Every structure is written in structure tokens, then in C-alpha cells.
């Protein structure tokens, strides 16, 4: 007799966003044509072309670096109090244009509007606010270094999973410390960076302080390899991170790398189970699992494994997959056909290797790139799905018997970005946190980010920290 509570479509309006049919590069405060071959950026939920975007070739990158170098002279000497005001302005404009940015991000990236609206964009604004306040306090930023200096021109290459947020993580500290920036957004998600260029114009940021060069891998290589770039900051895959580390060998370039991960989310039998289920769901399905710190390996204590899995599956059954602009969507589109192919391939490997595959019933749209929330049980450490970063909504479930075994398994990876621990026992939390070899340990929570909190990995998850006082050290000498 109970009727079904079907949530009617609740799409966020696109009207607020006025995309141009084509975008140029942002160099020296102005949009200019690129010299490379323009490319199209599509909405991964529909495969609709959103805009055409210029490609920067080496000459364009050189022009951008020159503009940044020229701007560095005045920007680095500007009193911190004044630099701060520009960052505060940018933060405010981001807040003013927040819904527009959120809509743009969801269209270009495929992430649910509730995430771009409630997570990405608010943290972007918070990042600029946080770092604005540092600009005139740098003398207090690095212990033992009372007169720190900016490095110069920062070449920054960012990924497609949090396009605007990663921009903020890179640009805000660089500018606060007096550096100027040449930033390359990801090929598949350039649009919010281009809106950010408009925001820089609205803020009257001096020309050349922020330059945005769109393009693919070769553009990124040109940025990283440019001899007049003093600092390279990269977020992306470990493979590319290694290429960058090789490319800068023997130079004076400073480097920050924020790379892949295969985080363990460890659930003990005394965990607050309902919240642990939420943390696990958030850990792997947030942003379609396109998260470097995703909790992609669930380590369950055997004494609670069965019960926990039942709860987890029930919860996964309530996840709403679909239109990223629908305010009720929990899981949006996979960002690209290429990424979808990788996820599909690794999931197939998991099955072939004998792990048990499960997804809740869900109707996927026929257009666009989609992958259902998926979990694999009976996964062993030797399986590829337990070792390789899938970067999609795929959870590998392993079990353990004792805390020591949990630590051993959690650390048994070349990565070391993040880890999760769920238990109600305080001393065990600290015991685990001490032993987990990861730059961020979330205890009884997961996937929390804050501009004041340093983020970054151990081992092959990269080096350097972003955020907090620690993040400034990567932009000062």
C-alpha cells in the first residue's frame, strides 16, 4: 500500500552560465588565440560539445612564461598587504559567481551539482580567503626563515577531477607568496579555469600574474620543461609525476607533486557502523571515485565483515546515478571515454581474477560516459584491483583479523596519500594513525579537505604539501 517516493527531476538551471562558443588562451591579462590546434570540450553526461578551446603550443607557453616573468618583478615586490587584497577580491568574486562556477564545473566535468555547489566551489573560495591572509604574514610562515622570498614563475599543471579546486590549491598559495603563475588546466575540463581568467580580469589582477594555457600533455610538458619556470606544481598520475621528476633533474626547479593513491579505509568491529558505511561510500563514490585520495581499498575486520557488507550494499542501493545537474544526483558521469575504458578494463580484470563483483540495480543513461557504483569482494592483495589506482567508483574489499595485519595490508602499496580508520577506541585510532604511512589519515571520517590542512603524500603519492602553513613552503625560498 505504500506508494513509492519517487524524487521528481530537480535540475539546476543552466541559464546562469553563458559559455562562449570558443575560448582563447589567457596570457598577460588578455584572451589571445592559441597557435596549436583548437580542441572541443564536451559534457561527459551527454557528449554535447560545450565549447572550443585553444591549444597552447611551445611558443604560446613561452609567451605566457615571459608575461609571468615580467609580472613577477612588480608582483613580488608589491607589499603583501596589497597582494592580499587582490586575493580577497578574487575570493569574493568566486562567492558571487559561485552558482555559475558550480554549473560550469558539473557540465564540463560530470560531477554532481551538489558536490560542485556544496564542496568544490565553497572550498575554492575558502582557499583564496585563507591564502589572502598569509600574503602579508610570510615572515611567520617558515620557522627559522624570517625573510622568505618567492621563487619566481610557477608552472602548474592540474587534473580534471577537481578542475577549479585544484586551480585554487595551486594559484592561491603561489600568488600569496609573491610568485606568478602559468597554469595548464586538464584537456577535458578547461572551462572553469577560463572563467577564473575572467574573474582575474574582474578583480583587476595585474596582467601576467595569472596566465592560463589550455591544451593536452604536450602543452603541460612545455610548461614543466620551460627553462624560465622556477617552480613546478603538478597534480595528476604517478606516471606523469615520475616523468616530471626526471625532467627537472639537474635543474634548480622546485617541485611539488600530488599524485595517485590506493588508500585503505580500515573498519574495525567496534566502529560506529552507520557512519563508517557513510565514510566508505563517501570515500569511494564521492566525485565518481575520481579522487586521488579515494578510499579504494576497504579493509574490514573479519568479525564484522559480513554485517558491514550487508549495510554497505543496502546503502549503495540508495545512490542516485544520473544527470550531474540534477540536485539529487549522488554519482555523476565519468569524465571521459578514455577514463571509462580504463575503469571498465580494470573492473573486468577484477572479475577475471576471481573477485566477486556487485553493483546495485541502476539505470544508466544511454548517452555519455557512465559506470555504476561497484564493489568487489574476496579481493586479495595480489589482485590488480587491490594494487592499481582505478580512479573510478570501484571499491575493493579485503579483510583482516588484527590491527597489526590491518596496518601491514594498508601500507603494502607503493602509494601513501591517505588512509581511513574507523573504531570507537581512542588509543587504537592513534596507534593506527601513527603506523599508517600516508600523508592524510582520516579517523572516523573521510575525504575532508580544508585550506588550513596540509595535503600530500608519502612515497609514490608525491612530495610536498598543499594547504596550510606547510603548503606555503613550496612557494618560498
Amino acid at each position, binding site marked *: 500500500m505504500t506508494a513509492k517516493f519517487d524524487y521528481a527531476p530537480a535540475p539546476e538551471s543552466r541559464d546562469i552560465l553563458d559559455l562562449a562558443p570558443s575560448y582563447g588562451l589567457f596570457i598577460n591579462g588578455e584572451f589571445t588565440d592559441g597557435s596549436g590546434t583548437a580542441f572541443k570540450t564536451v559534457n561527459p553526461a551527454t557528449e554535447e560539445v560545450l565549447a572550443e578551446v585553444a591549444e597552447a603550443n611551445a611558443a604560446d607557453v613561452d609567451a605566457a612564461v615571459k608575461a609571468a616573468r615580467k609580472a613577477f618583478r612588480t608582483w613580488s615586490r608589491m607589499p603583501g598587504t596589497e597582494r592580499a587584497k587582490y586575493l580577497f577580491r578574487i575570493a569574493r568574486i568566486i562567492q558571487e559567481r559561485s552558482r555559475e562556477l558550480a554549473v560550469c564545473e558539473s557540465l564540463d566535468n560530470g560531477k554532481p551539482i551538489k558536490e560542485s555547489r556544496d564542496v568544490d566551489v565553497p572550498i575554492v573560495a575558502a582557499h583564496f580567503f585563507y591564502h589572502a591572509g598569509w600574503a602579508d604574514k610570510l615572515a611567520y610562515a617558515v620557522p627559522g626563515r624570517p625573510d622568505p622570498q618567492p621563487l619566481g614563475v610557477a608552472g602548474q599543471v592540474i587534473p580534471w577531477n577537481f578542475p577549479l579546486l585544484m586551480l585554487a590549491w595551486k594559484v592561491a598559495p603561489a600568488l600569496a607568496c609573491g610568485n606568478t603563475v602559468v597554469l595548464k588546466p586538464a584537456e577535458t575540463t578547461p572551462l572553469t579555469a577560463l572563467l577564473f581568467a575572467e574573474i582575474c580580469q574582474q578583480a583587476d589582477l595585474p596582467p601576467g600574474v595569472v596566465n592560463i594555457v589550455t591544451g593536452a600533455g604536450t602543452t603541460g610538458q612545455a610548461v614543466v620543461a620551460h627553462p624560465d619556470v622556477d617552480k613546478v606544481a603538478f597534480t595528476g598520475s604517478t606516471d606523469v609525476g615520475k616523468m616530471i621528476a*626526471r625532467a627537472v*633533474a*639537474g635543474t634548480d626547479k622546485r617541485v611539488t607533486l600530488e599524485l595517485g593513491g590506493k588508500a585503505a579505509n580500515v573498519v574495525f568491529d567496534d566502529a560506529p557502523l552507520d557512519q563508517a558505511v557513510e565514510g566508505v561510500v563517501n570515500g569511494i563514490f564521492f566525485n565518481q571515485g575520481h579522487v586521488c585520495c579515494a578510499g579504494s581499498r576497504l579493509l574490514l575486520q573479519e568479525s564484522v565483515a559480513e554485517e558491514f557488507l550487508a549495510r554497505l550494499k543496502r546503502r549503495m542501493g540508495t545512490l542516485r546515478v544520473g544527470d550531474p545537474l540534477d540536485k539529487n544526483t549522488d554519482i555523476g558521469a565519468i569524465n571521459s571515454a578514455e577514463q571509462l575504458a580504463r575503469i571498465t578494463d580494470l573492473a573486468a580484470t577484477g572479475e577475471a581474477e576471481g573477485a566477486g563483483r556487485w553493483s546495485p540495480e541502476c539505470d544508466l543513461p544511454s548517452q555519455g560516459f557512465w559506470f555504476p557504483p561497484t564493489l568487489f569482494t574476496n579481493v586479495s592483495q595480489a589482485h590488480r584491483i587491490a594494487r592499481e589506482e582505478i580512479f573510478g567508483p570501484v571499491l575493493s574489499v579485503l579483510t583482516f583479523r588484527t590491527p597489526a595485519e590491518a596496518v601491514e595490508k594498508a601500507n603494502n602499496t607503493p602509494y601513501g596519500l591517505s588512509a581511513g580508520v574507523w573504531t570507537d577506541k581512542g588509543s587504537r585510532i592513534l596507534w593506527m594513525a601513527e603506523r599508517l604511512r600516508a600523508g592524510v589519515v582520516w579517523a*572516523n571520517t573521510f575525504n*575532508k579537505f580544508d585550506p588550513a590542512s*596540509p595535503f*600530500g603524500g608519502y612515497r*609514490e603519492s608525491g*612530495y610536498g604539501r598543499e594547504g*596550510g602553513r606547510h603548503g606555503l613552503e613550496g612557494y618560498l625560498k
Partner: protein
Amino acid sequence: MSRIDVRKTHKLFIGGAFPRSESGHSYPVHDAKGAFVANAALASRKDARDAVAAARKAFGGWAGRTAYNRGQVVYRIAEVMEDRKPQFVDAVTMSEGVGKAVAGRTVDAAIDRLVWYAGWADKYAQVVGGGNPVSGPFFNLSSPEPTGVVAVLAPQGSSLLGLVSVVAPVIVTGNTCVVAASADRPLPAVTVAEVLATSDVPGGVVNILTGSLDRTAPTLASHMDVNAVDLVGLAGDPQTAAALEEAAADNLKRVRRAPAAEPDWTQEPGLDSLTAFTETKTVWHPIGI
């Protein structure tokens, strides 16, 4: 007839033991004027590998010690060195070709450097770590942790003060290390090894290889179970340094690049020497009832 002295065999220091090179090779060590002094063990690639294994084995226990205890252990090294000061003065005089007075001041500085670092053990985390005021009901704390096994290419020139200055910050923060000593001036390092063996440093925390860097350095820089490498020993050799940095990229080792010229080791090192081989770990926990 005057007494014939008993000469020492100069060996490697791996896992708390003093093996000869597994290769059976040695090389002649000369004093600053070119006179033969002794044969030192010529460490091989396999010795480097064994040293890394020893360092890895020692890492968990050493990193797990309290900071206070690590400080005590490093201070104990200084005590034992002080006790053997004349021996170090001789070694430095012979290796570096300086007068006794200069050598004496160098040894004093090396001992004082150890004391300086020993004191940092339980303080640097307070200076570089701390609570982060995040926007939400969360306790959030960042603290430095050792990065793991560090390969240290020790300074070629400053065979004692330089050596101590690069090893102490690595171990006082809880790392373990494999040190490639100055190739031409290895004898102070061998004596340091003997000090380490008779102080309270657990075996494997510091492993010292003597011999040409050509053999050991590439092995260490490319070793996938080494977490970081200090290239200071390649000061003035940018080509080799670049090649090793490239090799280190295979597992994204933390690299401390070689300076153009060897630093002035008499200067106070600063915090960078400590933070270069630490990782910032940030722990979050909800605050609720």
C-alpha cells in the same frame, strides 16, 4: 727494536656489524700528502643492497622510539666521540691535511653538531607541526614523520664534520640511512662507525659504505626501497647529480640536490636539514559527544 704497531682493518658498517666488502675488494687510502695509509673496503652494489636491507629492517623500531630516546641516543654518540677525540683529530689531520689545531676545532664542531641535533629530537615536531584550525568540528593535527630509508652521499671534502652534519639530522628525526662516505677520505667515517657501534645506536640505523661512489651511488639512487637521497656528496658534479636525481625519480625519492660547492659546515645548518627527510602527516578526527 721499536714495537711494531697493530694496524686496523677498515671495514664497512652494515646492520651493526663490520663486514668486509662481499666483493672482497679494497682500495688504498692515502693521506692528504699522498702517502699510503691503509686499505679500505671497496663497497660493491651488493653491499649497498645489503645496507639498504639493514636500514629498512631497523626503520620501524627506530622510528617508533620516543623522540626523547632518539635525542638521548644521538647525544650518546657525541659523548663517545668526545672520549675518542684524539683519534678523530688524528683521522681528520691525516684525511684533510689540516693542522692539529684546525682538526681539533673540526672535531669539536662535529661533536657540538651532534649535541645540537640531539636537542632537536623532541622539539622540531613542535616547531614544524601543529594544529590546523579547519572549518568544521574536527581535530586536525599535522606532525612530521621520518620518510624512511635515506641514502646519504656524504661530503667528499669535510670527512667528519660534514659527515656528522648530514647523518645526524636524518637519524634524529627517525629515519635510517645508508651513508656513502667520502671516497678519498673514508677513515674518519670508519671511526665514526666504531663510535656508533659502541654507543646506543641500534644496528642498521646508520650503515656506512666506503669506496667509490660510482659503484654505490647509482645503486642507492635507483633502489626502489630507498625513500630519499641526499646528493650533497656530489657538490660540484652536476652531471652525476642530475643522473642520480633522474634515477631517483623511479620511485619518487625525496631528493636533496647537490650544491654547486660544498657548504661551509661550520655554519649552523637550520631546519631544512631536518625537514628535508620528513613527511607531514595530518590526522583528522571528528569532535562530538
